[in-house]
């Protein structure tokens, strides 16, 4: 099991007093992530422009849809450089779903469109011998821990890499959770994965704030 984390409401996250900057670049679906953060009592604010990010904010980058569109939207709003700088300065950064893929260099979904390049690697199309999108609940095997079920909705995924923290099997193994220094990424949707998902989200918040 993951180290069980007691969720006690808002006061759990007061120690560092850091806020979570939830990046709203217009393309993502923020309702579910906001709802999940509210449920675990995390303190967050929506950030629609880099100037709205506080200097000590932890950063949550959600994402659904198309890799190319997401990166274009981030570029149009001038998020790219500030996100890279914040990550470089050691600020906690969590990418969810497409937001996790954006932490990496490239995706075959949009060849030639660079990701943030904070981690080395390229998202690849999952094997088309399986029904795609990979939609539904699958197991994530965490390094040094047993597995948990989480909800996925993806056609592309990162192969195993140096930052891999959890893996999932769908026609082969892929990297479903990454964790390296201040960077975390989940290919699945913790905010849509019942109690196990909220617990994992709370664990990041606790670590980050």
């Amino acid at each position: 099991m993951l180290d069980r984390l007691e969720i006690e409401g808002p006061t759990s996250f007061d120690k560092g007093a850091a806020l979570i900057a939830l990046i709203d670049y217009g393309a993502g679906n923020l309702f579910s992530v906001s709802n999940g953060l509210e449920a675990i009592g995390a303190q967050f604010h929506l950030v629609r422009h880099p100037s709205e990010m506080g200097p000590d904010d932890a950063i949550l980058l959600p994402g659904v849809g198309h890799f190319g569109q997401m990166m274009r939207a981030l570029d149009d709003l001038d998020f790219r450089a500030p996100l890279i700088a914040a990550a470089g300065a050691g600020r906690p950064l969590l990418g969810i779903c497409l937001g996790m893929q954006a932490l990496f260099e490239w995706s075959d979904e949009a060849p030639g469109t660079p990701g943030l390049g904070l981690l080395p690697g390229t998202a690849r199309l999952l094997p088309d011998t399986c029904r795609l999108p990979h939609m539904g609940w699958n197991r994530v095997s965490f390094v040094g821990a047993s597995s948990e079920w989480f909800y996925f909705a993806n056609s592309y995924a990162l192969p195993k890499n140096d930052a891999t923290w959890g893996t999932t099997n769908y026609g082969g193994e892929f990297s479903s959770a990454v964790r390296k220094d201040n960077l975390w990424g989940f290919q699945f949707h913790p905010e849509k994965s019942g109690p196990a998902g909220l617990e994992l989200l709370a664990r990041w918040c606790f670590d980050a704030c």
Partner: protein
Amino acid sequence: MLAKRIVACLDVAEGRVVKGTNFVNLRNSGDPVELAKRYSDEGADEIVFLDIGASHESRPTLLGIVSKVARQVFVPLSVGGGVRSTYDARLLFNAGADKVCVNSSAVSRPELLSELSSAFGAQATVLAIDAKQSADGWVVYVMGGREATRLNAIDWARAGQDAGAGEILLTSMDTDGVRQGFELGLVNEVCGATNIPVIASGGAGSAGHFVDLFMKTEASAGLAASIFHERSTSISSIKEALCSANIMVRPA
């Protein structure tokens, strides 16, 4: 390995959950917010919310109720009914939907599927198909089962996939609400014609019907409504039966 999904469906009209047999004789089955919360807590893998009057009555989906439902559930929520444009879909996503289902409006304007898929991704674009058996094969019906079309359901499923749908919600009108089992022939034909997930709907009456569905077809998910509303079969008992049959499910 990906788990087979048990999906709980809320057919909503005038703010209440209703359920009929073969799409008629609707009965009042409860409050959508309470039921959604119960199903999410009881281990449903997904909730589908269908505003069944929206297309027929040409009124916008009940965004307020969708939003209340979305706040209560921490599993995926698909919403359908009256989605005619990316604007309509955007309103639903903002209200908390994770996917939108389109049915009548995709039949009258198939480009809607590619528009939704480009704007929100295939994973958020669900093509709902209501099919009824006839001498000529499986006929697609629209407007909540009120109007037959000239479309064949198998061809339409394939065309919908090619246009950008990321999932098919396939309802057999012949078995809907009858509780004698899913229409396995229809499910097999649609699964054979597509390579996207298929949610089978219509006919679930017992845990054994879900075992049959997953043993005999490639369906990714099975959907039920009335057996959950009336507590005749629980989500956990279905999952136990599937587990005993060595079918992978997320424990309830």
